[in-house]
């Protein structure tokens, strides 16, 4: 599956996802500027992304813990998610995300 990621400067990159990995891990390993300070524990809100072009609705809804943690994210929008909570899967092939401001 592919992830189409837009960085904070507006540049778009396509990165290869891996089944079962989180989108945060893929973005981080691809060198995109995702801080992910807590390492994926849903405890810091520094892997905040916007999920675009209808993909937000295709994701399973955020857990209560993620909704709570998003309260600590900056510039939250209705399509905000924490990328450590999105797990790569074939049905997400082509998902579009934009890395939120820090």
């Amino acid at each position, binding site marked *: 599956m592919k992830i189409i990621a837009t960085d904070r400067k507006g540049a778009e990159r396509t990165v290869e996802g891996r089944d079962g990995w989180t989108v945060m891990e893929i973005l981080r390993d691809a060198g995109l500027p995702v801080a992910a*300070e807590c390492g994926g524990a849903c405890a810091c809100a520094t892997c905040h992304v916007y999920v675009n072009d209808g993909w937000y609705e295709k994701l399973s809804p955020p857990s209560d813990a993620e*909704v709570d943690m998003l*309260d*600590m994210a900056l*510039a939250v929008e209705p399509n905000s998610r924490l990328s450590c909570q999105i797990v790569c899967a074939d049905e997400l092939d082509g998902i579009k995300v934009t890395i939120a401001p*820090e």
Partner: protein
Amino acid sequence: MSTPFQTDVAIVGAGPIGLFAVFELGLLDLKAHLVDILDRPGGQCTELYPEKPIYDIPGLPIVTGQELTNKLLEQIKPFKAEYHFNEMAAALEKTPDGKWKLVTDAGTEIIAPVVVIAAGGGSFVPKRPPVPNIETFENKGDGVGVHYAVRKMETFRGKNILIAGGGDSALDWTINLAPIAKSLTLVHHRDGFRAAQHSVNQMRELERNGKVKFHVASVKQLHGENGALTGATLAGADKVEWRHDTDAFLPFFGLTIKLGPIAEFGLNLHENLIPVDTAKFESATPGIFAIGDINSYPGKLKLILSGFHEAALMAQAAFHICRPTEKLRFQYTTSSSSLQKKLGVTA
């Protein structure tokens, strides 16, 4: 004791690795001072995941960040380290007699032959909202402009205050400042809060009494000439924007990690990490060591257990710098009566 402090080792960072370094140094009779920008020990363990379980600490099948910190504090208690909390290591300079002087942003000076950087990813600092030019409204004096913390409540008396956020800090300060403010407005991106329920109830009560105005909104712009804040542009969930007059803006979105002044310590950082050798975990600058997440070397794994190992080897090397004429006696805590005496466990 007062500044400047003289000690054997100055440790930057009181996270799990800085704390365990106290233990390894203590077994060798080396004294330590620790500096941390947070108000308590534990670093990321207590700031980011105090309640979350850690499963990969040898011998502890499950332990939370807070529990691990508590156990480390218990383990190092015999060595009576000195802690300097709420202080950021701001500068590092060589003294004329070849030692190091670590200076904090509070003016504390620690002079030691060895400095250990155990700073993780750097300093925890408040998250700054991505509002254009927000920094020009910071540090403009008591009760006005942008503040990321409330030091003295009284300075906000009679002010128009705008608070952003939905966590405990945002709600606590809304509740505490509302009675003394001229007006208090809280904005958050949703009509729900991660803060403790009793705080939310109190806030709702203040809202019903007209003491607090709450909007589902975000701050888009700040207004004012020469850093003198006069108002903000707010945008609701429907993107409709309006102007809101305010004297002060208090964003509360928790903390994030920034490398900070360590970048200026002259340690040849590579991608925000300090390269070290794997025999001593010393940087390219003699006497300056780096252990835990802040260092880099071939094969580095950012794990707490790796940091513990690094602390042990660092301590051996630090001994030779601090006690150049003494012979290091390698001993085990199980069998050494002198180590047991230091630990306070002899009969």
